[in-house]
Structures are given as C-alpha cells and as structure tokens.
C-alpha cells in the first residue's frame, strides 16, 4: 500500500510522544509498504518556527528497498506560515477549558494551536487521493484537524487523546465522525473517543511496540553522575504540565520523614528544579545513560495527570522496573492495573505510602517489575503491534 503519515513535526532528534510514536510506526510499516511522512519544517513545538528545510529528505534507519539507492523514510516537509502567538493561544485555551468557547472559538483554538502549514493542506487536497491510506497523528494539531477532512474516506486517525478539557469540545463530534478508522493507544483512550465516533467505525488498540531490552546493560555511564543508591527515576520532560511540580512537592515531603532515597530527574527542564540534596536533575540524557538509569533505579515515577500512553512506563517495564503512577490519570492507572506492574497514588499521603512500600518491600517491588515485563511481552512487541495495524488497514 502507499501510505502517508501526517504529523506536526518529525525528526530523529525530536523526542515528543506522538512524533516518536509516528516515527516508530512508520519505520515498521515501511518494511511492507511505501511510506511517506508529511510534516512541517518546525522543530520547536512551542513556536513552530521553521527549522528544517522544506521539500523532500530521508530520515531514519530504514534500509533501502530493492531498486532504491537511499534508505530512511521519505519525508516531505512544508513551511509553517505563521508562528504561534502564545498569548492569544493561552487566552483561547482558557475559554475552551472553561467550556465557554463558541463553535467559532473552538475552531479558532485549533488554528491558533498550529502548526499553520497551508502548503501541507494543499498537498493533501491535491495529492491525497494518490495514497491508499493517510494516517494522522494527534487530533489537537491544526494540520490534522483541518487536514483529515480533506481525505476523510482514506483517513486513519491516531488521536492520542487525553482526558483534558479539549476532548469535550462540541466541534470534535463532527471531526471524529470523519476518519475511516482509528488506532488507539490504550482502552481508556478508545473509551474516550469511540463514544463520540459513529458506531461500528473500525478501530484497534495498538499501544506502541518495543524491542526486548538487552540482557546486560552497561552501568558505567552512571559513574560520573555521582548518584545516590537507592534512587527513583523520573524520565521525560520536566514540566509542570507533566505533574513535575507536584512530584517534587510530594517527594520533598517524603524525604522530610527521614528517608534518604534520591529522586533522579532525567529530561530537559522547562521549570525550575529546587536545589535539594536528594533531587538530582540530569537534563537531557543519551540512550546509554537512559538504559543504565532504567536498569539501576528502584522504581519509575510517572506523575503526569494527562497521558494517552506512557511510553516511558512501557520502557521501564521492559527493564523489569516497577512504577508508581498518578492515579488521577486513568490511562496510567489502567496500564498499571492491567499489567500488575506497579502502584498508584491520588495525593501526597498516598504518594509517600506507595513509594515507601516499593522501597521497603523489595521482593514485591521486583515481582511487580517482572509482571510489567510480562505484560510488555504479551501486548507490546512489534510483531503484535504491526499485526493489529495491518488488520485495521485491511478492514478499512
């Protein structure tokens, strides 16, 4: 099949959730299909300023097909016409969050969220019919919200929906009625979106695929970091929207009870991290450090209140690491309960009790980690995931 994957930004150096998911899925589909990525020139997800050159390029490690000289995925980039005006966007976001936005304002929200890439939309309008299927990632972005209706009869939507105020806006009823099929990341996301789509729309819950973690991991990249043993790990963007402010608050309360465990926060920070002897910010870490952290930590902590799928959680389980997750996020709680791979907390007192339990009951914690790994083996290996996507492509 000739497939197009539409995503707001794309690149081997872009770490975002839906962008990374799109890249992995596209790379695996490229083994059987002719895949083209349709994206923008943006790298910065706040401003959408143009960074990559417009036009065709090759990205990633996909081996060349027979008759082709170059490997990698074929990527078509289109320029962003207008950077995001954060003030206007935030003001509109407040209206949407307060459920006060008119239909016009709701639609305006998607336009302001961006990226505003009119040439990408023109490409879909003119060449959309040349693709057998067009897969769209993340409904909240402008090129998906306005682009999907242009090729509705061949569109597959990967909504990456979270239970945030946006999902409740009225305009989405019309939007969710248009794709020919859905690929969901979790059953919770399916419940959130499928209730608003026409009954019987083909869909599959795919999550994301992982390769088995290596049996032995080199821990030496941790040596120069001077970490305290034991430590618990937060992995990802350090951002208040990811629950990091609450995590730090809860953790400080925990260590004030006399505990000496360290919180290692590995990921680029977009908020101040307090100077605390038991909180160790590492900033962005490379794959070697990441693997070593996942192998050496005593538990992963996922404080995010909104997630459509936590890839980090799956990665942790891939290393047999138990997790402590925010129970207010239905997706995280659902993942942990289905896997029997960790504990959850709804407030500071439960956070303290849950963390204490994982650190004090080492054997139970290790068993939770092993159960998490068994869950990943069952649900999230690439042959399983690609098989589900192929079945949906055949049904739509």
């Amino acid at each position: 099949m000739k497939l197009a994957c539409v995503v707001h930004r794309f690149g081997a150096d872009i770490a975002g959730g839906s962008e990374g998911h799109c890249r992995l899925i596209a790379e695996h589909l490229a083994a059987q299909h002719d895949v083209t990525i349709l994206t923008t020139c943006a790298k910065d997800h706040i401003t959408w300023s143009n960074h990559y050159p417009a036009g065709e390029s090759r990205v990633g490690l996909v081996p060349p097909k027979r008759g082709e000289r170059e490997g990698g995925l074929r990527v078509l980039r289109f320029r962003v016409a207008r950077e995001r005006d954060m003030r206007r966007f935030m003001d509109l976001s407040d209206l949407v969050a307060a459920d006060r936005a008119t239909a016009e304002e709701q639609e305006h929200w998607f336009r302001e969220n961006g990226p505003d890439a009119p040439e990408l939309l023109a490409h879909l309008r003119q060449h959309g019919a040349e693709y057998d299927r067009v897969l769209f990632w993340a409904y909240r972005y402008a090129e998906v919200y306005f682009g999907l209706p242009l090729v509705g009869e061949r569109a597959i939507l990967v909504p990456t929906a979270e239970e945030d105020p946006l999902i409740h806006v009225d305009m989405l009823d019309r939007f969710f009625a248009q794709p020919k099929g859905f690929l969901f990341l979790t059953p919770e996301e399916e419940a959130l979106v499928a209730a608003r789509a026409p009954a019987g729309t083909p869909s599959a819950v795919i999550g994301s695929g992982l390769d088995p973690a290596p049996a032995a991991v080199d821990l030496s990249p941790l040596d120069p970091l001077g970490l305290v043993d034991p430590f618990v790990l937060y992995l990802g963007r350090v951002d208040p929207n990811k629950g990091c402010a609450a995590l730090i608050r809860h953790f400080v309360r925990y260590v004030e009870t006399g505990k000496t465990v360290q919180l290692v926060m590995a990921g680029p920070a977009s908020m101040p991290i307090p100077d605390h002897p038991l909180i160790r910010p590492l900033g962005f870490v490379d794959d070697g450090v990441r693997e070593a952290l996942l192998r050496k930590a005593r538990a992963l902590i996922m404080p995010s209140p909104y997630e459509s799928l936590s890839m980090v959680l799956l990665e942790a389980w891939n290393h047999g690491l138990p997790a402590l997750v925010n129970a207010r996020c239905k997706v995280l709680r659902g993942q942990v309960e289905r896997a029997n791979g960790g504990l959850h907390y709804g407030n500071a007192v439960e956070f303290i009790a849950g963390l204490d339990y994982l650190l004090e009951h080492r054997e139970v914690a290790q068993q939770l980690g092993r159960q998490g790994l068994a869950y990943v083996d069952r649900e999230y290996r690439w042959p399983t995931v690609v098989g589900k996507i192929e079945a949906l492509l055949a049904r739509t």
Partner: protein
Amino acid sequence: MTEAKVRVDAVMGEIERDVRARLRRHLLKKGGAADYQDEEIFAAVHALLARAIDARNLDATLLPELVDGDIDWRLQTHLTLTTHRPGVGRFILFAKKKLLLPLTRWLFEYSQDNFRRQDHLNRILFACIEELALENARLRRDLQRQ
C-alpha cells in the same frame, strides 16, 4: 495469561487502609473532628469526599447550573480588552494592548495561575456539595420507603 503473583489491587487495598488509618490519627492529633474517633465514621466521610474528588466529572455538576443566573460565578482567567467608546476607544484599546499590557503582563500571569487554582478548587467544592446532597437524597428516599 498466567495469574499475577502480586495483585496491584490487593497491595493498593493494604496501602489505602494504612493511609486512612494514618490520616485519621494525624487529624485527631491536630484537633480534627472528634467524630473521627469512630473509624467507621471517618471511613464513610473519607469515601464520600474521595468519591466527589475522584469519581465525579467536575464539568458536570448541578450547582453551577443553578447559580449561573444573575451573577457569573466563574473566575474569568482569560483577559478580554474591549471598548464602548466609538472612535477614540480604538486608540485607548491600542494603548492598553501594546503599551500597558506588556508592562503588566507578569502580574496578570501571576494572578492567572492563582485564579486557575481557585477555579479548580471551586469546582471540587461544588462536586463535594453535590455528593453530600445526593447522599442526603438517597437516605431520605430510603427512609420514606421503610
């Protein structure tokens, strides 16, 4: 699929019981409601409030609909600048947007964050009141049926 050796719901049940017991002791020590001496009462109050916070959709409660009459109860967290003066109003608006607003933006953003928190808390309190009203209504109905 093999049965899990450790079940999350069982461990969480144990942790939650422990958390409730600690919380009750803590509140009593700090001079909280004397009724909390009774474990059952504390458990019932805890369950009711937790239900209001965790299980209710904060965007779908009755009280805000009833209050939404003459007064607008919701905190307006976004800023809208308008004018009622024809002609000169446009210049005043331009000055506000381009000169005054950039200078005072830090104050607006600081307040906005606090307004958002207060707004969230208000919605939680509405949900708590509704949960109490619901329980009251159920009890009344049960009493009438007896």
